[in-house]
Structure formats: structure tokens, C-alpha cells
């Protein structure tokens, strides 16, 4: 059972958290302008790297806030966590804060 460091609550048991998939997949600005294939890529396709991966997590049984994390998919180790960035594309974060 891993500890995950919520940026607001600190380290908590992993069962308090839910996974939100790959970060930096912003909702398209104008879905109508996308081809079917482009739209399908947004809806159905995500990266699956071996190694560090920028992800979204939510502290669902705690403060219920979403945050960004970089996690090593080989070891499950959280390399960093931080708030979702408000300046870049909204779902995209490479958090600056570290646990």
C-alpha cells in the first residue's frame, strides 16, 4: 500500500485516491473542427510509457481535489506531485512541487 502525497493533505494511503489518467490531454478548443480520427484520438487514445508519466490524480476520499503527478510506471514511485497548472493547458501539468 503506497503513500501518495496529496499536495494539500500530505501523504495518505493510496486507497484514498483515484486515478485520472494521462495529464496534458486538454479538451479540444473546438471539437467540431476535428476530424473523426482526431476526435477519436482524443477520446480513446492515451500514452502508455515505461518510465516517468505525467498523470492526473484525485484525492477522492480526502479533500476531493485533483492534482498532477509524475509517476514512474515501472516502480509506481511518485516522482513529484503538484496542483494542476492554471496557466498551461488546463489538464496538463508537470508539477513543480515535490513531495
Amino acid at each position, binding site marked *: 500500500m503506497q503513500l501518495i502525497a496529496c499536495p494539500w493533505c500530505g501523504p495518505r494511503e493510496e486507497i484514498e485516491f483515484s486515478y485520472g489518467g494521462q495529464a496534458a490531454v486538454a479538451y479540444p478548443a473546438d*471539437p467540431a473542427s476535428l476530424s473523426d480520427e482526431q476526435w477519436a484520438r482524443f477520446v480513446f487514445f492515451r500514452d502508455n510509457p515505461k518510465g516517468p508519466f505525467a498523470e492526473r490524480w484525485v484525492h477522492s476520499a480526502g479533500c476531493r481535489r*485533483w492534482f498532477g503527478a509524475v509517476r514512474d510506471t515501472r516502480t509506481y514511485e511518485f516522482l513529484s506531485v503538484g496542483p*494542476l497548472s492554471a496557466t498551461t493547458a488546463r489538464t496538463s501539468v508537470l508539477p513543480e512541487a515535490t513531495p
Partner: protein
Amino acid sequence: MSRIEGYGRIDRSRHVTVTVDGAAYTGHPGDSLASVLLAHDARPANTGVKLGRPRGIGASWTEDPTGLVQVEEPFPEPMLLATTVEATDGLVARGVNGQGRLSEVPDLARYDRLHTHCDVLVIGAGPAGLVAARTAARRGDDVVLVDDRPTAGGTLTGTETIDGRPSLDVVDEIVAELTTSPNVTHLQRTTAFGHYDDGFVLALERRTSHTDDGGLARRSRQRVHRIRAARIVVAAGAIERPIVLEDNDRPGIMLAASARDFLHRYGVLAGREVVVFTSDDAAYAAAVDLHDAGASVQVLDARATAPTLWSRRCADRGIAVTANTHVHGTRGEDRITAALVGPERREVACDLLLTSGGWNPTAHLFSHVGGRLAYDPSLGAFRPAAPRPGVEVIGAADGTFGLADILRQAGGVGAPPANEEPRDPTAVLWRTDGDPTRQFVDIQRDATVADIARAVGAGMTSVEHVKRYTTIGTAHDQGKTSGVIASGITAELLGRPVEDLGTTTFRPPYTPVAFAALAGRERGDLFDPVRTTPIHDRHVAAGAEFEDVGQWKRARHYPHPGENMTDAVLRECAAVRTSVGIMDASTLGKIDVRGPDAAVLLDRLYTNMMSSLKVGRVRYGVMCGNDGMVFDDGTVLRLADDRFLVTTTTGNAAAVLDWMEEWLQTEWPELRVRLTSVTEQWSIFAVAGPRSRDVVGAVFADLDVSNEAFGFMTWHDTALDGVPVRLARISFSGELAFEVSVSAWYAPAVWARLLEAGRDHGITPYGTETMHVLRAEKGYPIIGQDTDGTVSPHDLGMAWAVSKKKPDFVGRRSFGRPQNQDPLRKQLVSLLPTDAATKLPEGSQIVRFADDGRLPAPPVPMLGHVTSSYHSAALDRPFALALVKGGRERIGEVVGVPVAGELVPALIGETVLVDPEGARRDG
């Protein structure tokens, strides 16, 4: 009797009687079941699982591969080791032939869970662990010390000297100091069985296993400690490694250190004529101690020369030591009678053969979290290779074997001193020459060297594959004595160095753990939370049958005496259609959506327009995922310009709130909206039927409930005796209906008032089953029953609920994909079985109907499936809803539904079967 005076830590002043295989044996408190049996020169009636050969007790603790018993009293438990079962008065057990039997009576004992956080967790209370724990405690750390045996001290026998004193005196002194330290928790009979990420360790404490009455009345039987430690010290010791030889499975063959343990811990001499076969120094201590206790002993050392110091100690006692000699096999039937020694296989009579091929560090708990092990040729074993952050491995678990070295490693400069004992190197010897089909590697699995050879012959080169092919290491002991040997022999057979092969992965649990202990209190009523509405007891009193909807208990129907569900539901349906019924809809999810941008958020999440909804009005809405498939539906009440009340399906309430939060936080954080679950704050009662207006009007006299003043899909606030109440004209049955919402605190009173007011109209409480029938008669889908995540609003015939004005909303873009336009998509339709009698089973497949009424030969193209099916009181016949390929184009067509081998013809129709004009809505 093999009990030796002057030895052991048992309480000889008291007696316990145990029964094994029907025979009674007397022992003492402090005994294990195994030591009682050995004291009587007995063994459990065990046989090997495959070959049926007799099996005895092969070790003194959890590493024993053979001494399994089925315990019958005090509580039936299968496959326990006689060596780890503490002897208590009245214990009843029997030997097993490799397979146990689960209890057929319920386990009434309590099992608990305890969470602990600490600075340092020390695993193992042998010399290393004790000194490490004391060092940390004196530093001021919060310390937890766990050890799986009944008493601390590990493998110390009391013959050693620490700090110039008998070792067990020092153990007692350290334990006493730890006991009085407020920052130390010291748990014996507690096995750390799993080590996970971030300093998390699970440990099982056996709390009643040593008490005669089981102690069950007063305390939980076992407790799982969930320990989170900043630093973990693994001081779990080492397990002696046997040497594989022909017929090494006979009773009377044991690990050398285990015989010594039986002597010093229990005062039991495991044999009188003893042959010690070793390639390591430690076995000499067993030879000397067993001799001193009265046994006749000789030592056969596989190494070229015997160790000098030990040879002298043996010579002083007249113990014969022969170097450069192998044991190749054994003789005997129910027990060993002779060892076959040397290449000429000379018979040496004995009743106990001890073997020792060195020691395997118990690095399991280091390995569980990914700690890498490396082969150490000087040990013939795997030991921790590189450190892991937060985890230290010390003492024998790290491959440190001299007591003086162990103490120094555990306690640094403050450690108590011990005499330095010279140690000759271990000779790595996996097996001696002999018949590989009778050389047992995993004695519990009856797996031999021949089995490994067969695996290698079949082309396997990985120890993981060999393990699974031969089953070596998969028994209760998880290969504690056989795993490394299997690697060694596999390497030999492959002609490769064992360091290249490695060892199989250690996984939790270290020793078997009962599911009851893992479940803890979470069984029976506490297995999953049960949610009930504020008027649950009224439903119980009214004789309701309940169904589970998520964690909710919902009244399904209210059978009168003599009614079955069909009868009750038909009666309840008729009451709603002809007079008035009332249903507890409090479980509906309710989300308060508030803020200046509330309407913007809902416009983006619902397929239809919510911003145009006027205050005071209600709108039905559908939510889709990005894939354009229906995710949930419900009604939306506009409470104010900046405030909405959203209802969700009962089972989906949390998911919808999560969904809304996700969009709000991650995609549109600029929207000024707050979401609050108010599901449990509001109770909702649906009052439905042509007489509902009379009932509601009587109870809420301040409110004008006429159709003119209170139109369909509007809501009004009122008060009852000063308690705020909200009424909404929402119908899920097609009848005139009101939803009455009140604070959950007042729900019982309002429910009672409504029933009272409806008494003259025969107001009938109805349940979810009736609600399902009524809504199905109107073609209203239940999300999750009539849909399965592949159904779009258009498939449900709800294109009317999809806005064409909004530029975008979640799911909109997917509606334009060709897959969503396919005219052969499954669409919701009704099905009327043409015999007007068959209730089509939900989930039934739908196929083309053949005129002969027979099932066509396979393959039969599937046209769809039945999603809902009921008897209708209004139609006086069964009917169904179904998803059918191109269903709306097929309206009027007869299809076939296979039911019990027959093809039942059914007519496809529009979804709305009752009151298609909607004439009943306004009463």
C-alpha cells in the same frame, strides 16, 4: 519418553493433554504440538500428497515442510504445522495426507485490525533484533518489535555467552527494558508476513493460540497489525538448508538446528542414535548438545577437513567425526533405521538423521518490496545485494552468522560483546549421489530431483518456470527449505552458475494467513456499509421485501399475506394507475449546484439546454461521456438564477458528482460553481396516480395544487407546521404525480401524513419493482438496465433531449461519428410476446423468427437482447423493452426470443405502451 530433565523452557509443574489421531498425549505449557509428539516418540499420521509415503516432523518451526496437522478443536483449521501449534489442554488434531479440510461450522471468533505508525519497526526478536530495538528505543524512537515465536531470543539456546552472562539472561534483561519503555511496542506471536511500499508491513498477531479456553470470550483471536514505519529493520534470522539425498523424506530426518531447538526449547531429544551429516559448522553444536543430553552421536562432514575447534570438542566427548564423507540414502519404514554412508552405502544404524548444508538468510521481507538478492558463494545462499531506502537487513538475515558479529551489526559500539567463534567456510552441497526419483527437493509437494531434470529436459531454463512445472516452493511453506536448493540443482543440471539463475521471487504472505484474519470485522453485516432511508423501519413494518441498489436497501414491493412478488406488483401498479400510490424515492442522488456559472456548467454537461430553464421549473436531462454514450439521467430543478438541484440515478450518485467535479476542477476551473451532495439531507416521496392531487392538496393545504397553478414540471416551496417542504410535479409513471421533498429529519412525519391523507383513496405504498413496471410501460429507460455504456440518447429515442442549439457539450462531437449514425445500431423498442402469456427473461437474445417456431441451426445472428421484462396490470399481459439492431425500422416485425429451448414470437413496437398521448399526466 524422550523428555530430558534439565532442558527446555516448558512449565513442567503443569500438564496439558492433547489428542492426535485419536491418541492422548501429555505435555506442558510451553510445548508445541510437535514437541509433545516427539517427547512421546510419536508423529502425526501424515503421508505425502502424491506418493503416500510416511512423513514426520522435519524442523522445529515454520520451515518444516512436512509436519502438517488438521486441527479439530478448539476450532477446525486445516494445514497447520504441528511445530507452530502451541499445545493447549483439549487440543485435538490429526495428521493429513497433504490436504486439509475447511471448517464446516461458522467461525464465531473475532478478528481485528490495528493501525500503528512508528519510527522503527524491528522484525525479529533474536539477538540482532533485540539489540537493534533497544538501541533505537534508547535513542528515543517510537519502536515496534515483532517476532513470530512465543518468546524472544530467536535461535539462542541459552548455551551461548553474551556480555559474560548466559545469553537468555541478557534476552530477559533487554525484554524487560523494552517492556518498561513507553516508546516501545513489543509483540511476540506476531508474524510480519508482508512488506509493501513506503514502509508498510502487515503482521499477524495470534492472541489466543496459547490459552486453553481460546480466550475467545474476552479478546479477538487474531489481529492484523498494519504498521507504517519510517525505518524497517529486518532481523528475521536464517533458515537452515538441508542436503538432498535419496529417501530423505522419511520420518526421523530433521534439520540439525531444529533438533537442538527441540532440546533447548522443549527439553525433547528427537533421537537416541543420531547421525549428523553436514557441510557447515553450525551442525556441530547440535551434535555436541544432543550428545550431552544423552544421545549417541556421530558426525559426517562433507568437507575435506572437519573444523578444528569443533573436532576437539567432539573428541573430548567421544563423538566420532568423519570428514570428506557423504550420506547417500536412508533405510527404514515408518521411521529411519539407518543412514547409507559413503560410496559403498554402508548402513549406519540411527533413529535420527540431522542434515545441514548451511543457512539461507530469511530475506523474504526485504525481497517483498523489490529488494534485490544476490548469490553469495561462500554461503551457498542468496542475501540482500544493494540497500533499499528505509530498510536495513541485519544479522543472519543479512548473512552474518557469528554471534559477536551479529551483535556488533545490530548495536554498533554500544552492543554487548560475545565470544568470537571461528567458522570454517560452508561447502555448498545441494545433494549427494543417488536415485534422483527418490531425492526429494520439496518434500511437501513430493517433488524430486528427477522432476527438476524433467523440467530442464523440457527446455526450461528459468527457475520461475521450473518452480511452476515442478510445483517446488508452492506449498504451505513456500519453499523455505527447498527454494534455494531447487535453484542450485537446476543450475547444476543446466551447467550454469547458480548466480546467473537467481532464485524465485518471494511474495507475501511469509506464512499462511487465514482469510478470516484478513477480513477482520468486515464480514456479515459489516462486510459492506448498508444505507437505509429515514423511513426504512416503516417499510419493514409494512412487510416490504428489499433489494440492494448500490449500498442502499430499497423497498422492492410490499406483499400482502399470500401474495408473491408478481401479485404484489400487479396490485401496486393497479393502485397507481387507478387511484394513488406512494414510493420512497429518497435514495435518488441529489447534487446542489450553486454559483454564478452554474448554468454554464450544466449546459456543458447535459445534452440538453439547462441555462434556458426558468426558476421554478424542472427539466429532464441526459448526460453522456466524451464517447457520446449515455452515462446518467435525471431531473434538474432551477432553484434560483445561480442555483440548481440535480438528481441522479440511485446507483450513480457518487459517480455523477465525481464526473462534475472532474470537469470543474481540471477543465473549467474558471467557472464559479460549487457542488454539494445533498442526497442524505433530502427525503423524497413520489405520490403518483389520479388521486395524488387530492392527497397532496389535503396535506399541504397552503398550496394551490391545481393544474393551472401547479403545472407539470414545475416546483413550489411550501411549509408543513413550519417545516419547509418542496413539491415538484415530476412523473416517472405517466400518471399525475408529485414529488414531495423534506429534510430527512422530518421524513417519517411527512410520510405518515401522506399515508393518513390517502387512506380514503386506498393509498398504496409501492416499491422499486412496481416503479420499474410503471416506467417501462411508458418507455422510460433505466440507465444501467436498459443501457450498458454503448447506448446513445438517439438509440434510446431521445433525440429530443439533445440540444441542437448549443455549440458544444460533453459527448456532442461523438454523435457525428459514422459509428453513431449507423442505422443498424441497437435501438430501444418494446416487445410484446404474441402469445400474450410469456414473460421473456431479461437478458434473452433476440433472433429472427422462423415460421416453424424452431431455433435455426447455429450460427444464429443475434439481433439484440431483452433489457427489461414485466407483467403489466394496465395491459393485462407481459411486455418487455429491448435493444434491437435497427429496432425502430423493425417496428411491426415479429422476432424470436429463445426461451427454454422454444422460440417465442414477439412483436416489436413503440416504447410507449400505456397512454401514448400522455392524457393522464395532468390528472
